[in-house]
């Protein structure tokens, strides 16, 4: 080994020692990881969880409370504009209706049922007769309050314009547009702008059917437990985790408060009777004292009736509305005491069928049956309820060998007060 090779030797050694890397050995990390201080695990009640829950609840509340208002407001604005546009024609209504234009209108709208009726009324009912029949008091007020006409369009022009819009849609009749056209032709006759606008908005939004922003329902719920489910005594699981499966048949009745239903001249539209029927399958898992989860599936049927009076003829009719929906309550249950518990969560209502006989207008007095599928939406449930619940307060075990005869079943009636808003529910058992 000469000097040159010695230098080369040490250079090679240094290079190798500097650049050599060893393959990773996971077991070496495991040894070190066992010694490292553990990071604090996030607790169940971590702030982020409650923040997220709070945001969801707030969103639901805002959504449930204000979205329909916005829709109504938009409808009001749109209809108000429409009414303003029609303002001039109102003033000249009697003259217009008496002109030969009525014949043209009748001809132009001959293919539309509602328009036919409208035109037929235009033909058969003179403006003076219409005013005398039902609109005179309102029309007098309206005439006293109203301003000068701001639009010189005649009714025929407006109706023709609406008719053209309908025809543009390949013959499909758009209900809201027909509603606007027909109602604008009739309700403008003697109603105030405000009332007409409300009426228009109400009619336009009735198919949505979930105008449940404020509800006060008085329920009487009877629960029937189906045989065949396994069960265990409460004592077996006292202080332990409680798994409960309930299949409840729900029959309820109450009143729905609705500020938006103002399509009647009678003074009682805000409180409407409502019937509920549903089947609730609910599974909950929670401790006797502690936090648990509850997930349910409810099919519910609701029907409400309302008396409405034609603004045109004064004829009183009954409007019925039916709702079918699926409700998915997902709750966090905190039961700190036998008597009361707090359920916090969300409940989505998914309406899938809404039917109704609506009071459309004086000309179409028989109402029109509709099935609305396009208005399916998720709705936050906002209600205040008080009532009584009769349910079998049994804890159902998942263990199949624990079974009790049906004779062991007992009813455990209790009254409750339940307040719910935007998914936050407080249930207090009164006894």
């Amino acid at each position, binding site marked *: *080994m000469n000097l040159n090779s010695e230098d080369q030797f040490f250079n090679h050694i*240094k290079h190798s020692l500097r650049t050599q890397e060893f393959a990773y050995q996971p077991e070496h990390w495991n040894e070190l990881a066992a010694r490292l201080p553990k990071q604090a695990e996030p607790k169940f009640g971590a702030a982020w969880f409650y923040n997220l829950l709070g945001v969801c609840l707030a969103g639901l509340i805002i959504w449930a409370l204000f979205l329909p208002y916005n829709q109504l407001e938009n409808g009001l604005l749109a209809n108000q504009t429409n009414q303003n546009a029609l303002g001039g024609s109102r003033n000249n209504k009697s003259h217009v209706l008496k002109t030969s234009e009525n014949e043209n209108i009748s001809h132009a709208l001959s293919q539309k049922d509602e328009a036919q009726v409208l035109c037929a009324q235009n033909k058969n009912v003179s403006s003076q007769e219409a005013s005398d029949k039902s609109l005179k008091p309102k029309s007098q007020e309206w005439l006293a309050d109203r301003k000068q006409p701001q639009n010189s369009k005649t009714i025929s022009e407006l109706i023709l314009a609406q008719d053209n819009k309908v025809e543009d849609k390949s013959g499909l009749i758009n209900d809201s547009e027909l509603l606007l056209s027909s109602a604008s032709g009739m309700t403008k006759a003697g109603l105030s702008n405000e009332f007409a606008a409300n009426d228009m908005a109400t009619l336009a939004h009735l198919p949505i059917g979930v105008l449940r922003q404020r509800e006060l329902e008085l329920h009487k719920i009877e629960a029937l437990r189906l045989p065949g489910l396994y069960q265990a005594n409460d004592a077996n699981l006292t202080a332990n985790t409680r798994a409960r499966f309930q299949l409840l048949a729900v029959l309820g009745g109450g009143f729905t408060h609705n500020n938006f239903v103002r399509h009647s001249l009678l003074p009682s539209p805000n409180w409407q009777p409502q019937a509920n029927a549903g089947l609730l399958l609910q599974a909950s898992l929670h401790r006797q004292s502690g936090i648990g989860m509850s997930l349910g599936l409810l099919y519910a049927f609701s029907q409400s009736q309302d008396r409405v009076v034609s603004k045109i003829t004064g004829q009183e009719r009954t409007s019925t509305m039916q709702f079918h929906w699926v409700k998915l309550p997902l709750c966090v249950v905190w039961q700190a005491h036998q008597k009361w518990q707090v359920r916090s969560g969300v409940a989505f209502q998914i309406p899938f069928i809404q039917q109704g006989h609506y009071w459309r207008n004086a000309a179409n007095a028989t109402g029109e049956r509709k099935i609305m599928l396009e208005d399916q939406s998720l709705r936050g449930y906002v209600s205040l309820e008080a009532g009584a619940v009769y349910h079998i307060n049994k804890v159902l075990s998942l263990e199949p060998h624990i079974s009790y005869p049906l004779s062991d079943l007992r009813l455990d009636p209790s009254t409750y007060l339940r307040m719910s808003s935007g998914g936050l529910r407080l249930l207090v058992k009164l006894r």
Partner: protein
Amino acid sequence: MAGANTDIELQLLAGCLKGDSKAQEMLYKHFYGYGMSVAMRYTRHREDAKDVFNESFFKVFENLKTFDKTKSLKAWISRIVTNHAIDFYRSSVRQSIVQHTEHLENIDVASAESPADTLHAEAIFELVQNLPDAQRLVFNLYEIDGFTHEEVAEQLGISVSGSRATLHRAKQRLKLSFQNMIGEAKKNYESKF
């Protein structure tokens, strides 16, 4: 060595500062190959190297908050490993020279034209590891890690002249060990034919 940290290293660093155990593992894995080679140079056995490296990384995680991000994380970790290896040497009572020959078959003597061609990495590590502890430390600190004799003397608690003499003996021993390796490898090769 400043500002040499990669984006990955900075991300891992940030994760470790948050206490993310996954980031800790990734950082450990990222520097394992390099850190273990440093530890291997200073220790005699792989198990000792692992202990030194793990102890060093324990200190890394403990003192990560004090690390200046503008400086090289790799150099910082290397320094910690080196310091810990020195501590390990100080606490060690083993001073004997143990000859290991189990990797002699890694020397390709048949085609060797120069020493550089004949040495595989494991054999080189073996040569260094077979040095007495003091010689191995001085050789590593001076030749590999670039410390001066004054710094080596200070770290090891010896005189500067002692550091120079130890380094000289280390080199002589390395050459001798290498020649022995070559001789044994040739014997083994010739005995096969």
